[in-house]
């Protein structure tokens, strides 16, 4: 599904160059539930940007379904993004002035699906996350857990191959976190790959495999756990 070989990425900051990703190699198979763990500054959000086709990389290779992703223009990237990926964010990122159903239907709008059909599909997906009764509520009228479930429905609505979840439980209490993780697991059981970026160990432990990231490199779990948390 996703193959990364010797991936490098640096950011230019004036005269200095910040080397963020220093040669990553990993593979994520179809239907895997993987977590990417690391403290802040480890490069996990940069990696997520690249995986989600929201940023370009400098060196190495990124294959998505045998497709080499390299220097895509924004239009092409948007197309792939819509086709392959569903995003779930820490802060839910629902559009505040659209109700739950409209939020879920938005990716379908960008696919050019007509209103009636996309609203019907959106309602089906809201039903799957147990929020069919809340379809006409604005995000401000929903609880954190409900918002995240709407966001998950939105990520699923295009029937993507991969769900990219950026700290999906970061803004939730532990009980709701477990609920959300359960939903993500259920999605994974349907054969969709789920990549969760997190810094919480208990969340990472619920996944099939953990990729530990430190200072732009993949490290083995023992080494990662040895790192004192105050660093």
């Amino acid at each position: 599904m996703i193959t990364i070989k010797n991936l490098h990425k640096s950011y230019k900051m004036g005269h200095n160059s910040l080397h963020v990703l220093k040669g990553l190699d990993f593979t994520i198979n179809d239907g895997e539930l993987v977590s990417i763990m690391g403290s802040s500054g480890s490069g996990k959000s940069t990696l997520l940007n690249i995986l989600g086709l929201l940023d370009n990389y400098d060196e190495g290779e990124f294959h998505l379904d045998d497709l080499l992703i390299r220097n895509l223009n924004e239009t092409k990237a948007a197309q792939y993004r819509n086709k392959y990926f569903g995003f779930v964010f820490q802060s839910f990122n629902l559009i505040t002035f659209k109700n739950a159903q409209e939020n879920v239907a938005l990716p379908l709008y960008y696919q050019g699906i007509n209103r009636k059909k996309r609203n019907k599909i959106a309602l089906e997906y809201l039903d799957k996350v147990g929020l069919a009764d809340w379809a006409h509520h604005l995000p401000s009228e929903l609880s954190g857990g409900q918002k995240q479930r709407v966001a998950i429905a939105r990520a699923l609505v295009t029937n993507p191959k991969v769900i990219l979840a950026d700290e999906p439980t970061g803004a939730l209490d532990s009980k709701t976190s477990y609920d959300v993780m359960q939903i993500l697991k259920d999605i994974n059981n349907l054969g969709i790959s789920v990549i969760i970026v997190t810094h919480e160990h208990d969340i990472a432990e619920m996944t099939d495999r953990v990729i530990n990231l430190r200072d732009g490199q993949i490290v083995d779990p023992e080494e990662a756990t040895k790192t004192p948390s105050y660093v």
Partner: protein
Amino acid sequence: MFDLDRWQEIIHTLKSNKLRTFLTAFGVFWGIFMLTVMLGAGTGLQNGIYRNMGDFSTNSAFMWTQKTSEPYRGFDAGRRWNFKNGDTKAILDNVPGIELLAPRVQGWGGSGATNAVYKDNTGSFSIYGDVPAWNLIDPLTITDGRFINQMDLNRRRKIAVIGQRVKEVLFDKGEDPLNKHIQINGVYFTVVGVFKSKKTGGQADNENQNVHIPFTTIQQIYNYGDIVGWYALTSHKSTSVSEVTKEVIALIKRRHDIAPHDDQAIGHFNVEEEFNKMNNLFIGINGLIWIVGIGTLLAGVIGVSNIMLVVVRERTKEIGIRRAIGAKPIKITSQIVMESLVLTALSGWLGLVFGVGLIELINTAMGGGGDFFYNPTVDFNIAVTALTILVLSGTFAGMIPARRALKIRPIEALRTE
């Protein structure tokens, strides 16, 4: 091309952000509204002033005799003199730039002294001896009958063309004045025509109490001999009336032994000069309107740009979300541009409608205009051009930040709380 979903998206976004929509709309509305009202008021003022002048030929001039101020060829300074019938012929023969020449002379009476009688009614009116050309230089509206013609002059007919006010004073209501005989300074005249002034206000009131009788008749009846009171003339369109006046004055001076540099001997008044002064005044007023108008427009544009900047800033996150779920860049920019286009066009149009409405209201309230304000109109092309400029600059102003917003990496935008 018409995409219902897209329109629903636009209307939805505008409706969901009422304050933002209102502020942007108001900036545009106000700019166009002010410009419309100012332009309308400007033309209203201009129309009002010009209408005061009636159909008065703008290429016309008047000249009259005054005491000489220099001794010349044996004559003392301070001599009184008169134009003569011979001058009329000489001017027409020697000054090719003349289009119309009307010698005029005034009869006695008027200014309060009774000089006109019909049956039991009496009045005090201004009596003028005129030729047909006068009605072409300063036209009147003939409501009944006719004006003086050449035959009247040739035969020295005792006929009169009377003003509206004269008719009202001398004749009973409903009585037809045509072919009735009125007495002017003891002589009977047949009324052959009634007229109404084309001017407005006080000038019209003055004109409406005039009586015109043939020039030759008045010269004989009042025993003027061949004296001409004063001249009214117009120049051909190709020549300036000021030039023609100069030539006529030079000719008259030669004929009456007046020193060539005696500027006092012939008084003259030139409508062209007055008209030019007025034109310059309006060029000035219009210039001012445009300076203020462009200023207002600029303020509107800056307002719209500012709000668009804020809007895009505020929407960075929304744009990030839309991108993350697969919106193509063109979809996002066109969405923002369409939103501002719809908003500015609609509110600009409203500004135009309200501006024109207010102008019309003023017009109606003034009962079709007073002495200085008449028929205020807005040049539609100018208004639409202004609107287009505003809409385009608003759109352009929205595009720059929209493009910048596209450059931000969505994850960063989405992570900031």
